[in-house]
């Protein structure tokens, strides 16, 4: 595999990160960042690692099969489900972060249902454990994304010229690894900026941010229905 191919993928990710990902995935990063106050960088790093892991998996599949459409047609329903799930999660996060529904700590007198609802709401509000973010990145890495599709198309094309299926698979993995690493700086920066904003203007901006999150979540859900 030519090193230049990997550099091109890295640069594609880097350019796309600032020119595409911030606009498209910024609300997702905002959603998980706003409630997080305990972890400094770890949640962003883990989330991005999870996302890149998924890209590498998809790169392996297109590299192995040499077909972009085999992958996308296979995961279409999964992507739809993840988009609805992500949309609902972002809506709930927006509601709890904005304080639109008052949260009470579950007491001994609480019913099991209200206790579960309260605990779920607290999870969405954050802070969460660091272990939440890597799987979150893996799941949200499957969100349908035009830029990622283009990277996968490039991997599928390149794998058709590989010596064998294994070489094609490895090529797909490395091409998507470099693409994913290229997209990371933009999302890390976006996440850090949201952390700074969140820490200094919690009360003033949380209401506005939560409304944007709710609208984004609704958009995600409506888009696939």
């Amino acid at each position: 595999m030519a090193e230049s191919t990997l550099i091109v993928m890295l640069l594609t990710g880097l350019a796309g990160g600032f020119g595409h990902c911030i606009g498209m995935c910024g609300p997702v990063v905002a959603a998980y960042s706003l409630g997080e106050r305990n972890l400094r960088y770890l949640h962003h790093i883990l989330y991005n690692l999870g996302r890149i892991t998924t890209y590498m998996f998809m790169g392996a599949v297109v590299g192995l099969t040499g077909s972009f459409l085999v992958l996308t047609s296979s995961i279409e329903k999964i992507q739809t489900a993840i988009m609805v799930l992500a949309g609902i999660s972002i809506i709930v996060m927006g509601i709890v972060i904005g304080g639109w529904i008052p949260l009470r700590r579950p007491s001994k007198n609480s019913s099991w249902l209200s206790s579960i609802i309260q605990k779920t709401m607290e999870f969405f509000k954050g802070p969460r454990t660091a272990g939440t973010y890597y799987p979150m990145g893996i799941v949200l890495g499957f969100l349908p994304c035009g830029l990622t599709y283009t990277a996968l198309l490039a991997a599928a094309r390149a794998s058709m010229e590989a010596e064998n299926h294994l070489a094609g698979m490895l090529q797909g993995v490395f091409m998507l690894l470099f693409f994913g690493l290229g997209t990371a700086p933009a999302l890390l920066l976006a996440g850090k900026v949201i952390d700074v904003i969140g820490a200094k203007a919690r009360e003033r901006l949380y209401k506005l941010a939560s409304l944007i999150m709710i609208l984004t979540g609704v958009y995600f859900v409506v888009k696939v229905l």
Partner: protein
Amino acid sequence: MLLYSFSIFLVLFLFGCSSGTEATADCDPHAGPCTKEVDGYTVTLDISPKPVRHMKELTFGVVFSGGSPALFSDSLLLDLSMPGMEMGKNQVVLKKAGDNRYTGKGIIVKCLSGRTLWRATLLISETLEPTFTFNVRD
């Protein structure tokens, strides 16, 4: 510091979302081939099957007329981009399929933003890059 951070984020966020250019469609590939006059040549682009949809394998055919085909090589690149949105490099290799005719297969990817406007740029030379801007159906 807060205002500075927020401004950076807002600029980056809007840059990612911005339409960037006021591009509009100048071609309807669903109805039939599109023709452009460029530098003394007539370039015709046909995309099939119709209607032209995202995430489907498409055949791109280009026909030149009104000039010497000797100007062109055995293959050409057709660059697919979305006006105002960075979508990565998606280039279709068009192989010579006749005196003035080139064909190749490619896929137009779907963007979560819901935008459907795409631009196909035929990379012939630095000074000769005819473009076709069109909407793709879901």
